[in-house]
């Protein structure tokens, strides 16, 4: 029954998209479209929640649409239900936010038809049960989000972002097509059930794994395939950015999990080596890139890259434990990864909504022109603060729970028999610790420069609070962040069926542990209780404040800041974003990013302005894409002569290819 509801939601969203085409000409059209999307997403959310809550068995549906004679198959099992829940919760929140934000869009016709189509595509990917419908839905998702990325076509960098996005998405889909081709094998049956029944040999399985890692990984944002993400995510409108960062990357992770954990059967241990290495590198590089940014939305996009790295570290550990038949540690690692998927959707959507509110209120995306917004946008500031604290993995919020579980999984690492893994897992643990610390620094910078201090531009001084729908969406997400942090046991038990299917075991039942703690393996080994910690914090803080106010004093006086005797320091004397990041840039940036800082100071007596220039080179462009692009251009220039052949020569080429293929067939026999 929930699968049926899920497909009806997809159909409804496509209908809303069509309505968007018709209604898009009128300026009030955003309200009904987004409201309808909200309702449909909530319906999908309820269906997925019901499937997981009631523990329903997997359901399949076949529709006669699609390839003639084959049709298309759809399936809703625990894994699909979890990702459907994530996608629809994100979609519902984005639609709620857009009810307030949507009025600022200049040309509604460029956004409204594609937004419900995008939601439909994401839902359809999760529900697909055969390769053809999966790929069609995947491409549909990519194309509708591309249209949303270039919706603000006046800015040239958005067009460039769209171009790079389309390129990387095409490469990703190509690798997925090849992977499905290998998986289908000789039979040519593209349904997932048939692929599950086939057991490819080690070489084929390894090839499929690498292709899927490249394809799904590029959509998720793994280094070095991440370059489109920080260009495309900021270019789209804010509710779409939240969907792209919070939900679409998770759909890519769903694709990876479905193919590698489910369709391929038992993993080989060296797969986890690659996933762990790439995950660790992605986590560290993502957050270091984020620290170098001045654009608020680009900083959030790079932080998405970091969190995807953390999820892949959990998945890599899951693969490692499964390859050695250690079911309970695998369950721990996969639980950590899935919880982080959910948590990241929550707080990244919250952060992008806040960034959207800031951009609408001030017109500025550059943090160097913001400041003091905590006074102008007080409620947005509270919600954004909760988002920043959650992404920095601070207890008692939810980001800490998934990181804690990942650390616990890493600590089981020494029991693995393979030497290669025993070398890489401590390195990955160190990288995870480093990325957690750097993420806190990054979000102190983001919040401190944008919201605190004094306003650095007239636009920041004149900002006004955003509307009630945006605030509602933000506060609902903030409340969910708290809930997931205080009651993680409920979340762990809720996703236990998913974990059981992927790892072959589940964690001990968490509901019913003393005082709502979570005990992943055994209580003698480790336990954590968010609720007790929060209560302790509140109690000690409040009691201390009361005691101090009652028995000491509560007198306050307002006065000027300490200015070292130089009165009237302008707001430009404050720290800016790049100056805040300067120590970290010096420490980590000189080696990783070839950071070059040049200072041009006018001599005493000159009245011109001084200049400070920071040049940051992205190593992925320099070492990977630059040479690749140059090679492609060189090859195409060399092959240009093929354009100018005579007809006889073309015929010779066709004849030669045909003969060659016939010879191959003969030799194959």
């Amino acid at each position, binding site marked *: 029954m929930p699968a049926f509801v899920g497909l009806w939601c997809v159909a409804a969203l496509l209908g809303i998209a069509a309505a968007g085409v018709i209604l898009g000409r009128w300026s009030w059209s955003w309200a009904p479209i987004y409201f309808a999307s909200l309702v449909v997403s909530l319906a999908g959310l309820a269906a997925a929640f019901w499937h997981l809550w009631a523990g329903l068995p997997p359901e399949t549906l076949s529709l006669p649409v699609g390839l003639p004679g084959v049709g298309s198959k759809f399936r809703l099992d625990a894994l699909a239900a979890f990702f459907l829940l994530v996608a629809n919760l994100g979609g519902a929140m984005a639609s709620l936010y857009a009810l307030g934000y949507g009025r600022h869009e200049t040309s509604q016709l460029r956004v409204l038809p594609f937004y419900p189509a995008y939601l439909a595509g994401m839902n359809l990917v999760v529900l697909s049960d055969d390769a053809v419908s999966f790929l069609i839905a995947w491409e549909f998702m990519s194309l509708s989000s591309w249209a949303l990325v270039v919706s603000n076509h006046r800015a040239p960098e958005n067009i460039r972002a769209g171009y790079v996005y389309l390129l990387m998405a095409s490469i990703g889909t190509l690798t997925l097509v090849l992977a499905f081709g290998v998986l289908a094998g000789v039979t040519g049956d593209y349904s997932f059930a048939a692929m599950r029944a086939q057991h490819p040999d080690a070489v084929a399985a390894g090839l499929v794994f690498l292709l899927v890692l490249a394809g799904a990984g590029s959509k998720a944002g793994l280094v070095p395939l991440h370059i489109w993400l920080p260009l495309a995510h900021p270019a789209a409108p804010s509710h779409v950015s939240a969907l792209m960062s919070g939900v679409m990357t998770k759909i890519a992770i769903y694709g990876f999990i479905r193919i590698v954990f489910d369709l391929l059967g038992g993993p080989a241990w060296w797969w986890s080596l690659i996933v762990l290495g790439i995950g660790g590198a992605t986590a560290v590089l993502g957050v270091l890139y984020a620290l170098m940014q001045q654009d608020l939305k680009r900083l959030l996009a790079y932080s998405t890259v970091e969190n995807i790295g953390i999820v892949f570290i959990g998945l890599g550990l899951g693969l490692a434990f499964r390859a050695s038949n250690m079911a309970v540690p695998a369950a721990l690692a996969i639980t950590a990864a899935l919880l982080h998927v959910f948590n990241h959707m929550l707080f990244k959507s919250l952060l992008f909504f806040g960034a959207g509110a800031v951009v609408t209120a001030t017109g500025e995306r550059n943090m160097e022109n913001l400041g003091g917004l905590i006074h102008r946008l007080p409620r947005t500031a509270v919600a954004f603060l909760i988002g920043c604290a959650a992404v920095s993995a601070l207890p008692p919020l939810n980001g800490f729970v998934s990181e804690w579980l990942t650390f616990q999984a890493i600590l089981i690492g020494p029991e693995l028999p393979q*030497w290669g893994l025993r*070398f890489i897992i401590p390195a990955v643990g160190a990288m995870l610790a480093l990325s957690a610390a750097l993420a806190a620094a990054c979000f102190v910078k983001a919040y401190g420069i944008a919201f605190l201090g004094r306003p650095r531009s007239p636009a920041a001084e004149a900002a006004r609070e955003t509307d009630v729908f945006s605030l509602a969406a933000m506060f609902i997400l903030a409340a969910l962040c708290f809930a997931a942090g205080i009651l993680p046991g409920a979340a762990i038990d809720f996703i236990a069926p998913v974990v059981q299917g992927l790892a072959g075991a589940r964690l001990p039942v968490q509901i019913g542990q003393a005082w709502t703690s979570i005990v992943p393996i055994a209580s003698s080994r480790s336990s954590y209780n968010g609720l007790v910690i929060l209560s302790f914090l509140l109690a000690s803080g409040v009691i201390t404040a009361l005691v101090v106010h009652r028995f000491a004093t509560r007198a306050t006086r307002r006065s000027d800041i300490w200015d070292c005797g130089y009165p009237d320091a302008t707001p430009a004397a404050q720290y800016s974003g790049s100056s805040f990041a300067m120590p970290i840039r010096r*420490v*980590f940036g*000189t*080696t990783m990013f070839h950071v070059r800082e040049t200072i041009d100071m006018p001599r005493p007596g000159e009245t011109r302005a001084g200049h400070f220039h920071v040049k940051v080179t992205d190593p992925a462009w320099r070492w990977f894409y630059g040479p690749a692009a140059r090679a492609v251009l060189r090859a195409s220039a060399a092959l240009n002569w093929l354009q100018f052949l005579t007809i006889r020569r073309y015929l010779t080429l066709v004849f030669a290819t045909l003969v060659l293929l016939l010879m191959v067939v003969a030799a194959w026999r």
Partner: protein
Amino acid sequence: MHNINFDVAHLLAGSILALSFVLLYQHRITSMLNVFALQAIALSLSVAWQAYIQEAPHLLVTAGIALAVKGIVIPTALHRIVRRLGIHRQIEEVIGAGPTMLTGLGLVALSILLVLPAGQTVSLLAREDLAFALAVILLGLLTMITRHNAVTQIIGFMSLENGLVLAATGAKGMPLVVEISVAFSVLIAFSVFGIFVFRIRERFDTVDIGALDQFRGERRDQT
């Protein structure tokens, strides 16, 4: 399960390894000499402990030589020479402490990967000791590679040699270790002094002490 003798041996070997790491990121020549002296003292303690648990009293002689020559004599002599030549204020241009230390960690990983899985016939203790010693040798080589100054390169070489002595004393039954240690130390001492003699020669075109006195005024201006 945990034999206190082996634990102390590992602790001392580990401290030699840690001091090799510390040697990697030193910027100034004087601090490098101090760390090297500390490493030599740790080496002599380790060899003395090995003498105790292996009941091989000739190793005590090696320990004494390491302490006397490499722990006291060579560092003090180098300190004096460095100060007199005025290069004690030079700051070494190293290829960034961060990448150097990461490479050092990688080299430790490599040496463990090479030694620890090798064969169950050798006892675990001996394998771990050998892994530490190999790591110290590799780190000594890394120290030599990342330096421009001749004095610091020699210090790197001598710390490499500490690793060799550690490996030799860890395995039982090496009676020639004493003689080899003496020979090595004297060799190093002579090469160090030789280099400085040549350097003085090329700077002042003479090693005649009387002639050097005339240049003292100029040297003070230069530094």
